[in-house]
């Protein structure tokens, strides 16, 4: 095996892993913290890519990166306030089922608005070309993607751990009634957190668009993978989602040269093994 090939796959694995980490970070907010198993997470990722596509053609790529999370996050806020919050008492099963129905609606909605055919988008002009690393070259756009994703993940982590808002959110998850009694509207807070989680999936979709293009069902694979990442990393652990995401990306990328036929299934087998041997995940407490 050529060392340059391995190096390329490791770099690609990191890019892939950072995308997974970003989507899984969003899912950690929604599933890990709010305890809502949102099976439409991948659908919001797809919607983010398509909103970015429209914003891009009208106002350019930088604005698309802002529009996608805002618009789709807003959709998430509305859906949470109108429906998901009301299902809280019905339990996980109903929440899973409802969000499964959402997948059908979003996926078909995308096909109606943007058409069922795959989209392809060119890499923004300013980010074409690549950086030379010895005998391989690494595209600027991928570098940009990793930087933006890392920045966002750091930002969310800082807000959660270092600000008053983050403290209120964490307290609200720990003991909603107490935080409610102190005078904070916990339900509204949770709806905003839900919107933020959805927004992270949406911006990941926007970032991936120039790399992989778009397609109405593009969220399904990622939805499954983000659940895998969250489970492997440990439910509710932000660090687990990030490390798990990069790990899954690397494994998938390296498997594609070692044993390409099994790159997909290896991830699911890994999850099953983690679930059976260490149900709390790699980084999970308890």
């Amino acid at each position, binding site marked *: 095996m050529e060392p340059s090939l391995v190096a390329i796959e490791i770099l690609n694995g990191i890019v892939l892993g950072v995308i997974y980490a970003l989507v899984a970070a969003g899912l950690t907010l929604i599933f890990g913290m709010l305890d809502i*198993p949102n099976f439409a997470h991948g659908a919001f990722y797809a919607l983010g890519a398509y909103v970015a596509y429209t914003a891009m053609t009208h106002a350019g790529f930088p604005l698309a990166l802002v529009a996608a999370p805002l618009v789709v996050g807003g959709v998430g806020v509305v859906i949470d306030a109108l429906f998901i919050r009301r*299902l809280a008492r019905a339990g*996980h099963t109903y929440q899973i089922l409802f969000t499964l*129905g*959402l997948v059908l609606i979003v996926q*078909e909605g995308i096909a109606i608005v943007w058409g069922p055919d795959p989209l392809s988008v060119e890499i923004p002009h300013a980010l074409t070309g690549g950086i030379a690393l010895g005998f391989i070259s690494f595209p600027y756009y991928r570098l940009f993607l990793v930087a933006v994703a890392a920045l966002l993940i750091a930002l969310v982590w800082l807000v959660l751990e270092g600000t008053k808002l983050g403290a209120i959110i964490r307290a609200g998850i720990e003991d909603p009634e107490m935080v409610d009694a102190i005078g904070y509207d916990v339900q509204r807070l949770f709806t905003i957190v839900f919107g933020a989680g959805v927004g992270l999936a949406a911006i990941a979709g926007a970032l991936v668009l120039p790399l992989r293009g778009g397609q109405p069902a593009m969220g399904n694979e990622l939805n499954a993978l983000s659940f*895998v990442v969250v489970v492997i990393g440990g439910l509710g652990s932000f660090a687990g989602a990030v490390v798990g995401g990069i790990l899954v990306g690397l494994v998938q990328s390296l498997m594609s040269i070692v044993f390409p036929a099994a790159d997909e299934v290896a991830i699911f087998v890994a999850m*099953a093994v983690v679930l059976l041997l260490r*149900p709390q995940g790699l980084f999970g407490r308890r």
Partner: protein
Amino acid sequence: MRAPRFAFFVLIVLIAIAPTILHYPDLLALALIFGLLAAAFNLLLGELGFLSFGQAVFNGLGAYATGLLLVHVAHVPILLALLAAAACSAAGAAIVGLLASQGAGVYAVMLTFAFNELAYYLAFQLRGVTGGDNGLRGILRPTFFGLDLSNDVAYYYFTAAVFALVFYALLRILDAPFGYVLRAIRENEGRARAIGYDTRRFKVAAFVVSGAITGIGGALYAMLYGFVPLEVVDFTTSTNIVVMGILGGIGSPYGAIAGAAIFTLLSDRLSHVWSHWPLLLGVLFCTVVMVLRGGAVELVRFRGLGVTKRA
């Protein structure tokens, strides 16, 4: 379980006269097959409270078992083909049930999902056995004690007979003490264990029953089309089964049949007219989950037609 006897009778009459109303015996047979799959799913969700995202595994096991038997062995009696499918799927379901019942809540759901991915991968890779993405071809319907089933109407009535038997058996199982234990586990597993039931064993047993029924469905499907496509183990099939099982109402075996019939007929009839019909399906599905937990059957029950939802 006394009142639903009437419902069962109505269902059988409906099935018997269906081909004279709707002249698509193959589509009607498919609706019955999906009805079995949905009822088997509903056994896990409605009775045991276990949401399975891996029903396609059992469907695939049944379809491939029957398909391989009929392709490679000459003169296999049709009942043996069905039994083989039920046995293979039941064995697979025992393994999945044993492992998945270790997890709790969403983790268990994810485990069934992981097994579905694994099964799909195996079916895809073992091209020599399953035909991979080309599918397993050349399955001929055997005769049934000399009766020629190559005609679609004849095969519909054969499917209907198998359906009636299996569905009746399922109703009896739900009404037996076994069914009561499953519902006790659903309501409060700790309490069920405290009064002395080995709940894990009951969970696995529920999986075995669900798997066997799903396997028979898969076998009937393979013989209906003479072909086993890779889609039988696809995750999409699992989610379709979930959709069918919910559409007609959670917790009612009749609801599962209604859901499967609605799904099958809508997806066939509506897809010609409007290619974006899944949107409607999604809206319908979400509505059921939000406001009508009992599903379509609950609507009927309101009108007092004697279809009762089980407690």
